[in-house]
């Protein structure tokens, strides 16, 4: 079943929560307005992706990275997002680094013990990759996406 990009919505519950926290107490939002915002958020991601991809292509890269997205924000005139996004990125990197070190530590501990085969091991190895390879998924997805 081919899904149009605009139909890929972000979960309503999360969208509603974000809206409610952004607005003062006691303010409500109609269902129509909420679903319009949700749709707008999807369009935003699609548009930002497209802009970011342009920057990646300019840099002759095939992989979108964080700085492409930040450049896209600037291009889209959402400069006010750039600082909070940079902070979030720093926090995210720290967290990823922490996880990586934790999983490496786990591995070391595992090696010290007599090892029992754990399915999670392969997942930990995946965590070590900084870049997410979409290629594997794309091979599966090609049947679904009607382009």
């Amino acid at each position, binding site marked *: 079943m081919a899904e149009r990009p605009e139909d890929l919505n972000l*979960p309503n519950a999360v969208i509603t929560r974000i809206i409610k926290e952004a607005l003062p107490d006691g303010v409500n939002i109609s269902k129509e307005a909420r679903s319009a915002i949700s749709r707008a*958020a999807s369009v935003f991601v699609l548009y930002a992706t*497209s802009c970011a991809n342009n920057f990646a292509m300019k840099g002759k890269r095939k992989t979108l*990275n964080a700085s492409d997205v930040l450049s896209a924000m600037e291009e889209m005139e959402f400069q006010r997002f750039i600082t909070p*996004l940079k902070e*979030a990125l720093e926090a995210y990197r720290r967290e990823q680094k922490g996880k990586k070190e934790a999983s490496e530590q786990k591995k070391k501990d595992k090696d010290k013990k007599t090892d029992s085969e754990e399915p999670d091991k392969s997942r930990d190895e995946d965590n070590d990759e900084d870049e*997410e390879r979409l290629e594997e998924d794309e091979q599966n997805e090609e049947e679904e996406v009607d382009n």
Partner: protein
Amino acid sequence: MAAAAAAAGSGTPREEEGSGGESAASQPQPPANAPGARLSRLPLARVKALVKADPDVTLAGQEAIFILARAAELFVETIAKDAYCCAQQGKRKTLQRRDLDNAIEAVDEFAFLEGTLD
């Protein structure tokens, strides 16, 4: 940090598409044990699905997906607040669809939304 852990640590956003969204919708409020580092509430799997929908995109790094998710959150906050200003002028306490339309017309940055929400 339950939200970040659920979104990134459990491995669901990497390979699976559908399950990531459902689990995010039903998860409880994340504990505020990391002040200011509420990394992302939007499920990375869904954001990744949107990114992959673009036929020109070859690959996207994990960080890029994360930043897009966070940017989308900021966007939702921003547009909600801007729409609320319109509702306030009407002295209403419920945001309506027309408030959103007004905000989109009034704010230059939202011009890309024109015609997309119908």
